[in-house]
């Protein structure tokens, strides 16, 4: 597989194994992301995409191998220290806190580095959230909750965003809006690792795609090659 020329990858994952209890989920994941890139992990249900994100964040039962961020090894460190290096995670289930209102949800993740968005900028990006800032977080619509889940990790100054299926279960017009937001974030210099089931959505935003199957990365396709690799990708994803 051909990896585009990059100076020093922001995130480098090598031989990553992960377990939930007794079940061995990741069997040596290898990939890397350059600074400012938008990379997706594609694959069928249960291939290990979400587990890869959770392993990078350090919230799986057990993991081995190597995950370096800005050259620093993170395996063996608790998740709160990994977050403080500048990695932020937006989980698939969104993880909006019902005992916090919208603004409290937004302000929850502590600022770990300078350079994050201000609250005003986040509200400009997601005007709905400002209108409903006193509402209970879980009273929002699915799309608004997704925007809240993305919005709250933009304040922290983290440079790498891990987004787990941000379009899942949302109406097409909202999916489109989230696509615009993700492109804007890339323009602002965020590095994004995106897990997606929705390949058509992924293809519109990403620089490169890694295909995950049975806990391994089995292929890599750049955005430029997507058209000619379409048949191959569809076979991988079973679409």
């Amino acid at each position, binding site marked *: 597989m051909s990896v585009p020329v990059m100076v020093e990858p922001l995130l480098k994952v090598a031989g990553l194994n992960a377990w939930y209890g007794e079940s061995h989920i990741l069997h040596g994941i290898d990939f890397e992301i350059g600074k400012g890139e938008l990379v997706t992990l594609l694959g069928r249900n249960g291939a290990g995409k979400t587990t890869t994100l959770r392993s990078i964040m*350090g919230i799986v039962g057990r993991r081995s191998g190597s995950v370096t961020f800005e050259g620093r090894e993170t395996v063996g460190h608790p998740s*709160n220290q990994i*977050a*403080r290096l500048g990695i932020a995670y937006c*989980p698939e289930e969104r*993880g909006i806190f019902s005992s*916090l209102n919208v603004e409290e949800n937004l302000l929850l*993740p502590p600022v*770990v580095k300078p350079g994050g968005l201000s609250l005003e900028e986040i509200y400009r990006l997601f005007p709905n959230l400002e209108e409903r800032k006193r509402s209970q977080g879980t009273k929002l619509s699915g799309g608004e909750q997704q925007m809240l889940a993305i919005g709250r990790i933009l304040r922290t100054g983290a440079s790498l965003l891990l987004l787990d299926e941000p379009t899942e279960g949302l109406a097409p017009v909202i999916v489109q809006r989230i696509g615009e937001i993700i492109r804007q974030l890339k323009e602002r210099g965020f590095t994004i690792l995106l897990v997606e089931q929705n390949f058509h959505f992924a293809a519109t935003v990403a620089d490169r795609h890694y295909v995950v199957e049975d806990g391994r990365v089995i292929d890599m396709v750049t955005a430029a090659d997507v058209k000619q690799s379409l048949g191959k990708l569809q076979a991988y994803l079973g679409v």
Partner: protein
Amino acid sequence: MFELLGISPPALFGQLLLGLINGAFYAMLSLGLAVIFGMLNVINFTHGAQYMMGAFAAWLLLGMLDVPFWAALVLAPIIVGLIGVVLERLLLKRIYHLDHLYGFLLTFGLALVIEGMFQWKWGSSGAPYPSPIAGGWNLGFMYLPKYRGFVVVAALAICLITWYAIERTRLGAYLRAATENPTLVRAFGINVPRLITITYGVGVGLAAMAGVLAAPIQQVSALMGTNLVLVVFAVVVIGGMGSIMGSIVTGFSLGLIEGLTKVFYPPASNTVIFVVMALVLLVKPAGLFGQTK
């Protein structure tokens, strides 16, 4: 009206006031339990012993170091809270992933050990603690010692400050969020294990502060917490496990209900809280202010 009911106003108001004072202690203690349960998922059966340790700490500070009540009101909760922190780091943190039953066994066992040690050293007859505020007010229908009035106000203030800290501050937001989803909160960069330790220390400190406030009213004795804590657990169950406002409101109201029962049907006054508990659980199994998860 009072003639109709066959009771005298002094008896009624007197018992209501006593009920309010008891309710103040129920509220403070169940508040600490609610805070601890919310965060640690452990029902802290050591709470009564820690309340007793607060009273003893104040008594020892006075007897050995001449530390006055007002200083002890701050110092004793800090000392007992720090002992709580050590217990959490050494023992409790090892059982969070296990069933509730293990938390029950551990904290209940600790309570027995702690109370046994105090009983062995100081006996169980109890020692008096001089009231820091002398005198009282004649309210017409009854005589109210000033100190008891102070206890009600102080307890209310402590409850409201705690409520504010949890519901309206940034640290409180961390706490509420970590109660819901500790893994995600930790993945945001917050040191959740440390937050848990602090929470336990503060919850224990609240129990100890209630103990200091109780010292001038009751005898300071090794078993002063055991009877009280039974009622307090009923209060927590009625209010809803983990609900902060629920603990405060239920604590004060059950004190009043108990007081009223003493006026109208004294034999039931010891059991009325448990009757209320049974009724509430029949109608709302999660408690009055509790949320089913």
